């Protein structure tokens, strides 16, 4: 039934509709605006769940794919093309959406985290109308990124997340918000520039195809993911032949490295991480939930989708580099997290550490590793969203989240403290919670090829236990400073998202097949390609 409607587009553009409705509502009707925003955040989540229920891994997402010719730009036919029998020469920008086992988990993650962030937006205290309008716009961008199947469309959605995020950080953040917003803008803009250059190189070479029609040959450049994938794999395509479209090894490497830097900034890979520390520390809690929970995952997704699938040969050669970068991320993030006094920064560094594990998964080049990378992305998204939800709730009450100023919270806010402890345990990878599964799969995947790197990486996990327990315990136990004696535990509206996120973390930890089943067969094509490269 879902196949009959353009479900992916509806899913993506529902929040945009919400933005328009929000903008039309009068500024003074705050409750109404909030209700609308929450409704338009939950609707896509419900659609995503429906999609999950009807998605069959063996069949794949082909039935849901949507394709529309958006723009077909005429190119100059005067450069002697008529002699070669070409009647039409065009640059195609297609509107293509698709879903597979790689996108679906991240779409579900987006739905879950965005919904919880919409509930957590009670912490926002000013200019609600603009806030919710941008919040919804951001969601359209995020869904679009995970569902787009055309390079240009992907880029547009990617940039679409940039503008609302700049506002969300810069208007509703803490004291250093503008600086954080600027850094966010410039770093991510830089990433986009790298990405666009790589995409253009791919479009101008691998995107070329000639199709015979009744009226003659049509030459076209297209950014369609399917066309690129097919052309790159086909040894007879112009891109692999000695032609003007030839994608030489040098160009392939250029494109690959550009992509690694582009998505490495987003992920973030050390040393491109400084911007995200600022954002973690200065943005409002619901905004950080989205940022840490979803936006960082766009880096992992992009690296897998474009780096791994389109240029597997380069990925294979660079696997040791990526694995090393991953280990550096893990250890660097973990050690610095141990030294922080501000809980938000502990979490920021822990994010760097955990995103390193994603890199290890990608570098492993086998099914367990890839699944681990995606699983780790989703699991870290849920955990960090939960942790920042708690940060928001604590900041609301204690007006600080510095570890050395807080203490003994377990006696005044037992519920929050309990959730905090659970989230902390999930973060350090306690078996039975989702964090463990992602880490385990990634390490398992890499162990085949680089056992020593795995050994160093696992050391990072020891540090995770140190920084998590140190900060969580010193915040919840010990003497309670007098000024915190009067604070109360969470209200129902705050408890709800905490419970929901905790439940998801436990569920995925206990029954990971919920997600890994979804991903099976998604990497078959890529793995086959990688094996054939090894064999030949």
């Amino acid at each position, binding site marked *: 039934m879902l196949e009959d409607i353009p479900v992916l587009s509806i899913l993506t553009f529902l929040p945009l509709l919400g933005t328009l409705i929000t903008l039309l509502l009068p500024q003074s009707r705050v409750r109404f605006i909030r209700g609308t925003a929450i409704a338009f955040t939950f609707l896509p989540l419900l659609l995503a769940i429906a999609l999950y229920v009807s998605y069959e891994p063996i069949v794949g997402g082909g039935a849901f794919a949507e394709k529309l010719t958006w723009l077909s730009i*005429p190119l*100059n036919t005067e*450069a002697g093309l008529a002699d070669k029998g070409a009647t039409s020469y065009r*640059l195609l920008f297609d509107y293509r959406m698709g879903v597979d086992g790689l996108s679906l988990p991240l779409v579900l993650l987006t739905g879950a985290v965005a919904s919880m962030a919409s509930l957590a937006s009670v912490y926002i205290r000013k200019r609600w109308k603009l806030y919710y309008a941008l919040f919804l716009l951001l969601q359209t961008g995020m869904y679009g990124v995970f569902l787009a199947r055309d390079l240009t469309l992907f880029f547009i959605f990617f940039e679409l997340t940039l*503008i609302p995020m700049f506002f969300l950080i810069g208007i509703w953040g803490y004291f250093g918000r503008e600086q954080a917003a600027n850094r966010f803008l410039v770093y991510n803009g830089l990433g*986009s520039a790298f990405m666009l250059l790589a995409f253009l190189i791919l*479009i101008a070479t691998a995107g070329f195809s000639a199709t015979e029609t009744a009226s003659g040959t049509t030459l076209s450049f297209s950014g369609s993911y399917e066309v690129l994938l097919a052309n790159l794999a086909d040894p007879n395509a112009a891109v692999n032949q000695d032609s003007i479209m030839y994608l030489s090894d040098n160009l392939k490497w250029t494109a690959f490295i550009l992509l690694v830097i582009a998505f490495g900034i987003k992920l973030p890979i050390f040393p491109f991480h400084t911007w995200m520390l600022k954002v973690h520390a200065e943005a409002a809690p619901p905004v950080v939930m989205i940022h840490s929970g979803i936006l960082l995952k766009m880096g992992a997704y992009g690296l897998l989708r474009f780096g791994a699938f389109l240029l597997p040969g380069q990925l294979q050669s660079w696997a040791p580099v990526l694995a090393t970068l991953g280990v550096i991320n893990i250890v660097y993030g973990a050690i610095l997290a141990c030294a922080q006094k501000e809980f938000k920064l502990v979490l920021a560094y822990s994010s760097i550490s955990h995103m390193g594990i994603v890199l290890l998964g990608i570098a492993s080049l086998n099914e367990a590793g890839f699944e681990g990378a995606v699983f780790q992305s989703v699991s870290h998204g849920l955990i960090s969203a939960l942790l920042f939800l708690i940060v928001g709730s604590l900041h609301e009450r204690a007006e600080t989240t510095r570890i050395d100023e807080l203490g003994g919270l377990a006696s005044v806010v037992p519920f929050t403290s309990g959730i905090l402890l659970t989230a902390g345990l999930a973060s350090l990878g306690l078996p039975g919670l989702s964090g463990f599964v992602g880490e385990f799969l990634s390490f398992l995947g890499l162990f085949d090829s680089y056992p020593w790197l795995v050994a160093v990486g696992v050391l990072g996990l020891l540090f995770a236990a140190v920084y998590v327990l140190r900060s969580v315990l010193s915040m919840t136990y010990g003497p309670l400073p007098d000024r915190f004696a009067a604070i109360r535990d969470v209200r129902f509206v705050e408890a709800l998202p905490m419970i929901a996120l905790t439940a998801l973390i436990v569920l995925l930890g206990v029954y990971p097949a919920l997600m890994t089943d979804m991903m099976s067969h998604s990497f078959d094509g890529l793995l086959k390609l990688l094996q054939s490269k090894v064999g030949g």
Partner: protein
Amino acid sequence: MQALQTLTWNDTWYLAPEIVLAAFTIALALLDLSLPRRIDRDIIGWGAVLGLVTAGVFVGWHIHDLGAWEKAGESPFRNLLDGSYRVDDFGNLLKLVFLGASALIVLASLGTVKKEEVPIKGEFYYLVLPAVLGAMVMASSGDLITLFIGMELLGIASYILVGVRKSSGLSGEAAFKYVVTGGTASAFVLYGMSFLYGATGSTRLSGIAQSIGDAVEGSKALVYVAFFLMIVGFALKLALAPFHAWAPDVYQGAPTPVTSFLGVVAKAAAFAMLYRLFVNTALYAYADTAQVREDLFLALAVLAAAAMIVGVAGALRQQNAKRLLALSGVANAGILLVPLTLDITSFHSSLFSEFIYYLLAYVFMNVGAFAVLTVVSRETGSEELSGFAGLYHRAPWTAAAMTALICSLAGLPVTGGFFGKLFILFGTVQTKQYWLAAILLFTTVVSYYLYFSFIRQMFMRSGDTERQTKVPMATGLVVWICAIASVALGVLPKPILEWVDGLFSVSLDFLSR
């Protein structure tokens, strides 16, 4: 040597747009003289808009005629006065841009130009017309001398326009600087032209095209000198780095509508001239000119790159909105120059459609941004960036429109600026000019920071007052036309590009004669 071909009655039809503008100029000048003092000179402004629109209608008519000829198998252009003036699709498209942009600019200034500031308001309105006329002559000329006359007409009219705020010291300084640099630019161009004439023996672009091959063989150095001198002149006119130092001062001193005119129409006209000269002199046509062609186009590419880098870097620390937009104009001139430098012989979307598309996007974003600036500076009395502080609270809709314009300037999707840059980038990547693509991309990223300083002011700072800003009707209209057009160009770039591609052809518009 054939007899001199004079203007015939038949030709006047093809010159209709130019004649309309000249007639309107004279009529409005007389009207301004004869009207009693107490009557508001805005009526002359409306007259100027009417003149521009009428001329535009004629241009549209010509485009339609040329299209019909092409269908009938005739050549879709007309050479007047023995080829010294040509009416073709290239010229017509650019004329439409000039006329449309000028009409928007005059419309935006109606009601915002204050009598105290510009005592000669009537002149201010009708002097725009001869300036546009000069630009149109430049776009249509087929001869070096016609080119130069057009350039001077545009130049002289705009020197006066820059100095029109008679009581302001800045305006006088700007006018003086503009006269001096404008004169220098003309001198360089003229000097280069004389060498070109010496080397080829003709001032006709078609004549130059025929003999340039021999000239290169005979005295290569002379051809180089000729073109490099002209490039310097054009770079001065276009404010390309390192010839851009006058731009911020002049832009700041001139009244805002004039700034917007200089940034859009005067620049586009200089580009028209560059295209005419560089493409029409058939540097493409002969194999023996390949070396010269490559060198010249490399020089242009380097200028484009320098303009992008210097423009963006210089604007980073700018606190004055007009100077900032002036330097952003330097960077944008660099971007507009990129398509011309690409090798036309390899596959790409034709140097012209990319150019005209980005030019259109640039017209809308620039005219719109300057219109918002007039509204803001009228209210706060300052042209500093800080005048935008808290605009979101004072005029939320204008702030929203400005955000769209800013996104287009910065090249963020989905706007005309984004697709314009994307097409130009695609051209550079296809012709394997990766270094140019990289510079374009990275200056664009840095410019995010720059353009977002408007957004920071509008949305994140609070202004001195929360009083609602009054937006004059005509100015508001222009702001919204520009904002909507910027977004519409981004959502649906196809109709424009299809249309331009259908009209324009390198071989017919430039190379055939």
